[in-house]
């Protein structure tokens, strides 16, 4: 197993290296940091712009291959992913923002899976019953609500609740309060700030798990082995949980593992509405500001997450399904 994972990881490392370098060339040819200076008054000369960008290895007069080599040696030797056109270190930005995103994404993903699968088990055992139909209708409705609408609705609701309670307990913006001291107080403050964004991501994220897991379960519920399990003395609900779900979870586990990179960099709208400085925002900002190094680093980050997701998917499959044995 360990050998297999190492082999897979090596393969993925190669893929990430190729993809990242390809992104470097693409980003360098599409993103032009010089245009950042166009709006500035007095108008900067070409000379001045070049001199401003040169310290950050972004001087367009330098040959591309040269710049690439400098960038690559920085990454390989010092793990320095470069700087933005205004000199901000990419390493610092990503380090900080990935933690912010992780807070947001990990909780929301776990909640979405738990809520989605639990609802799927509940409704699949009662196929075409009123609870199944109601849950289905709710999920379909939520499926069609854009994230920004859901987030704003929650914000409005939270403000109303805060007013009613006369106590500011739901935070609608930011990832923390500036003036909190002490470990427990910080933890509580962070958690309070997390409630609404997590709720937004969960409400829009659980739907997929509910609907796919429900149909996966329905395929399995009628199978002979569930009937055998019931014949040994399990109720229908027990047989579904212990025998059908275990088998039907395999595809869900895989899709969750693969969706991790997408949620990390894809929560732009939620981050924007709630004023969180996460990876999603960074991704958009770097492109807007012609930040070549930031864009490349974000792409590399997403690629690494994809690799981790894929390896996690393999591991969960092997754990859940004894029929798949790695050699």
């Amino acid at each position, binding site marked *: 197993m360990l050998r297999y994972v190492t082999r897979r990881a090596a393969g993925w490392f190669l893929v990430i290296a190729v993809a990242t370098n390809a992104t470097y060339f693409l980003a360098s040819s599409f993103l032009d940091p010089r245009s950042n200076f166009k709006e500035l008054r007095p108008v900067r000369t070409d000379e001045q712009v070049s001199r401003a960008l040169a310290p950050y290895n972004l001087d367009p007069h330098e040959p591309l291959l040269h710049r690439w080599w400098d960038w690559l040696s920085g990454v390989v030797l010092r793990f320095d992913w470069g700087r933005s056109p205004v000199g901000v270190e990419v390493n610092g930005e990503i380090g900080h923002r990935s933690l912010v995103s992780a807070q947001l994404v990990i909780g929301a993903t776990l909640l979405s899976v738990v809520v989605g699968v639990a609802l799927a088990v509940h409704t699949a055992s009662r196929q075409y019953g009123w609870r199944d139909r109601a849950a289905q209708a709710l999920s379909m409705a939520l499926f069609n609500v854009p994230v920004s609408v859901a987030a704003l609705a929650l914000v409005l609701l939270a403000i109303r609740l805060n007013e009613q309670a006369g106590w500011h307990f739901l935070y609608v913006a930011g990832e923390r309060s500036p003036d909190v001291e002490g470990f427990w107080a910080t933890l509580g403050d962070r958690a309070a700030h997390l409630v609404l964004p997590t709720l937004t991501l969960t409400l829009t994220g659980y739907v997929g798990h509910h609907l796919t897991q429900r149909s996966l379960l329905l395929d399995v519920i009628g199978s002979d082995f569930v009937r055998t399990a019931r*014949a040994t003395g399990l109720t229908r609900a027990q047989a579904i949980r212990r025998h059908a779900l275990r088998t039907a979870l395999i595809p869900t586990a895989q899709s969750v593992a693969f969706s991790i990179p997408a949620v990390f960099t894809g929560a732009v709208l939620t981050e924007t509405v709630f004023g969180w400085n996460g990876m999603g925002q960074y991704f958009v900002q770097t492109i807007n500001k012609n930040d070549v190094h930031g864009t490349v680093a974000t792409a590399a980050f997403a690629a690494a997450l994809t690799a981790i997701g894929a390896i996690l998917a393999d591991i969960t499959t092997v754990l859940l399904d*004894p029929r798949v044995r790695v050699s």
Partner: protein
Amino acid sequence: MTLAPARPTGPENPGPGPERPGPENPGPGSGPGPARPAPVLSVRDLRVSFPSEQGPVQAVRGVDFDLLPGRTLGIVGESGSGKSATALALMGLLPPAAHLEGRILLGGRDLAAMDDTRLARIRGKDIGMVFQDPMSALTPVLSVGRLLSQALRVHQDLSRKDAWEQAVQLLDLVGIPDPRERAKAFPHEFSGGMRQRVVIALAIANKPSVLVADEPTTALDVTVQAQILEVLRLAQRESGAALVLITHDLGVVAGHADDVAVMYAGRIVEHAGVDELFARPTMPYTARLLAAVPTAGSGVQRPLLPIAGEPPSPVALPAGCAFAPRCAVARDVCRTTEPDLTAPAGRPGRVACHRAQEIADGTLDPAGPAGSAVALTPDRAAARRTPGEVVLRVEDLVKTFPVTRGALLKRRTGTLHAVNGVGFEVRAGETLALVGESGSGKTTTLREVLRLRAPEGGRIEVAGTDVATLRSAAQVRELRSEVQIVLQDPTDALDPRLTVFDLLAEPLRAAGADRTAVRSRIPRLLDLVGLDRAVGDRFPAALSGGQRQRVGIARALAREPRLLVLDEPLSALDVSVQAEIVNLLVRLKRELALAYLVVAHDLAVVRYFSDRIAVMYLGHIVESGATEEIFARPRHPYTRALLSAVPLPDPQRERRRERIVLRGEQPSAARLPAGCVFVDRCPLHREADESVRTRCRTERPSTVGAPDGSDHRYACHAL
């Protein structure tokens, strides 16, 4: 002569089996005897219906029976007779949409009135079930030890360790070798027979007082079936349980049941002791069923009498007796009033027939006089007189498959020898049957013949053309019309979105026939296979199983082939319909001088249907010869075991006959033994002297002819 189905002994000779009941211990329902033990299970007026688009389907319509402790009740019936719905109702495992009425009394409690939670406490503890298909009956992601210990812990307060220990003991009891190690294995690591043993272990884990087995051996090979029936008997003895054995196989019932209930269209139509029922069937349906079932047993071959028509659809039952439309002795009253299940005077058991008394008195033959008119006696003498030209010649055929490992990077780790040096000939007007268990290479051989390409090794000659010499696609297409196939399951083999006309027109159009040719040919094709011309407008879904198989045969005949390849052509059909298709195929062969290459696992059917037999084991033909010769004088130990494993639909002979139960199962064709492929399971090898044993181990036996100079050939060192 009127029809006399299977009457080997008189009623004075009830067959004194050790724990068998004679007529003095009558079937239930014939009045309370003084010393009759209390039944463990009583079913009263059980009714099950399912909603459907055409209205409620009445699957079970008023079933009553009592099951006595330690006894076996066989429930026989064709598909749609309601036997499986009865089984599921007993277990409380009917789908939620089903509607259940009546009473199911087990130990004083009425199971029919319980909800799922209360039923779950009884399921597995007081009543256990063995299911039909062991391949899908076990949860694939849990080890068998875990499945068993879970089943134990549902009802018993056991620690994980104790439960595992008991699970290992149970696996040992049902005959799983090396149970301690195998308990950790997952279902996919077991063969079908071994999985069915695990299913039986699950059913008896908590020592229930009633076992329900729903077609427990239908999905298994015949030698494995014999083993599983033994295990079931053992399990029953160990747990002292009463057994409800549901099957369509009259042979299994004859050998294993004490009482038999025959079901037809959702009702029990006859219920009697097994000897009584087989010796003197009273209900016309029972009588006709016994006459329609082929037997593989030795002795005089009796003709096979099909029952006209097909079982009624459960959504549109006739007004009177459900069997009346197919019955030879039906009267007007039979068509208007449904008879009750009553005991005719002077007979033990119960019958639902208006004319039961006449039949019981012996004044009326239940099968009626019409039966013998369409009797089929295989016309083997005629076939032997006119040996046609060779239509298919296979010489030294070899087919291997690579065995690969690894999910991502496939590495070849071995070779599976599916077919190894197989050779045979089929002549026009002749049927050759390839028989053997699954994995013996029968189907691979068929596929190689149908492929019409040069085989991996050996030679295939179709209608005088060596397929290796075909150069162009046009040549292949031309030869393709000489070889056609009839598939196993007619429901899957016909495109549900094409009408019968289009289905039959397709091969004709592919051959380039124009509209008028197609239009004139299709009615003649339908006539040929005995279908009404109006069937042409219908879709396969509107046809019955037998009609669909006729369409399948008509489609195969559309291009006027000389060789018809039949892959298990009868195994998806009910017994009463099977006989008609056998008759049809035999007639077509004679009229059109066809050559048949048949793959079948049901040896009894093969006997009625083929002129010659080739017995395959692990990719080799171990014995071949004329059908009657093989059945009368089987030489190879595998053939003998195979024939002895087929249950006979006759309780007397079934109990008396000597059975050779093979040990183990067919090994994988990826690791062929160096010598004889049968050596590991061979009973002769074990008894042979040292020099022969060495030859069996080291040298593959060559095929030799029997001393009488016939074409009976076999490959064995020990003979």
